[in-house]
């Protein structure tokens, strides 16, 4: 069969979401951020919320998400996305409001904002990219860095005697009455991508239905910070991240 007979609009079974614009993303090759951007765009498009969504961009590698996904955005100061999302959603209760945050943003400088927004049950969705490192600033240790894992600021590996154990923020916020949905997913395989998309959709539906706070943690890679190739990073994530941050729903009510 000739390729021209196959490559026709009616035979198209997969294409990037229209909300992802032509701007080339600045991410390193293979970065999980890109896959999650795509899923967010797909879900918003499928839910028909292109004009009814307000995203809150983080500080961290995801800072330029507002340049790549053509929806309305606000940019928050580092860690303050849940506070800004609180204001945006309370003033626009009919909009779908979500934050997009890394682990340094959400679980270090923004821990207070995260926990209190979840405790208040703000009707927002939080998309949490946990790559166990400060990617943007050069690979420093994050609260989520694994025991023994090397980073720029713990070159001999994280010593839990000195810095404590990695923070399981999703498990923590699942205990709070304000959260309605807390889940941990990954985007490194096709089934994983499909599950992560369903999770993001549920979180966005919860924001629209004003059910409380949803948090979708995506256990992610940072191949540059981890100093691996993208596929080595995926394998390393499976072997080392998943035992500590197991995938699956933590809470769904």
């Amino acid at each position, binding site marked *: *069969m000739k*390729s021209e*007979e*196959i*490559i*026709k609009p009616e*035979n*198209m*079974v*997969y*294409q*990037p*979401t229209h909300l*992802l614009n032509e701007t*080339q*993303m600045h*991410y*390193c*090759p*293979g*970065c*999980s*951020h*890109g*896959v999650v951007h*795509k899923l967010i765009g797909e879900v918003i498009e499928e839910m028909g919320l292109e004009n009814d969504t307000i995203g809150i961009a983080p500080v961290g590698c995801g800072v330029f998400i507002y340049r790549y996904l053509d929806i309305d955005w606000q940019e928050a100061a580092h860690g303050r996305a849940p506070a800004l999302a609180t204001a945006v959603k309370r003033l626009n209760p009919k909009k779908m409001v979500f934050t997009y945050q890394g682990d340094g943003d959400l679980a270090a400088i923004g821990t207070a904002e995260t926990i209190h927004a979840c405790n208040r049950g703000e009707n927002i969705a939080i998309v949490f990219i946990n790559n166990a490192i400060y990617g943007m600033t050069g690979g420093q240790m994050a609260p989520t860095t694994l025991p023994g894992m090397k980073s720029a600021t713990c070159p001999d590996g994280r010593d839990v005697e000195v810095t404590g154990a990695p923070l399981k923020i999703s498990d923590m916020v699942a205990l709070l009455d304000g959260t309605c949905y807390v889940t941990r997913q990954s*985007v*490194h*395989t*096709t089934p994983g*991508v*499909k599950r992560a998309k369903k999770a993001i959709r549920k979180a966005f539906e919860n924001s629209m239905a004003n059910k409380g706070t949803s948090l979708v943690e995506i256990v992610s890679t940072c191949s540059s910070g981890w100093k691996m*190739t*993208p*596929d080595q990073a*995926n394998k390393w994530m499976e072997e080392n991240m998943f035992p500590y941050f197991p995938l699956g729903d933590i809470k769904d009510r």
Partner: protein
Amino acid sequence: MAKFKGMVVVNTERCKGCNLCVVACPTHVLALQKREVNDKGYHYAYMETPDDCIGCASCGFVCPDGCITVYKVKTQE
């Protein structure tokens, strides 16, 4: 005989040669260019063995940069 025949179109200028589609393809259709590079200097992905593509779209799902469009047709049994 496979029941489906697929073809993928790679946005070669957007591709960063991360190799994740190559790893995700169940029928080992894709490869990275060995010599050719795009304007950014990346060895972009291409269909090395197009006849083996079944149009499953695994490559598209895992692509972090939205570079892949997948087409699929049903073939005669």
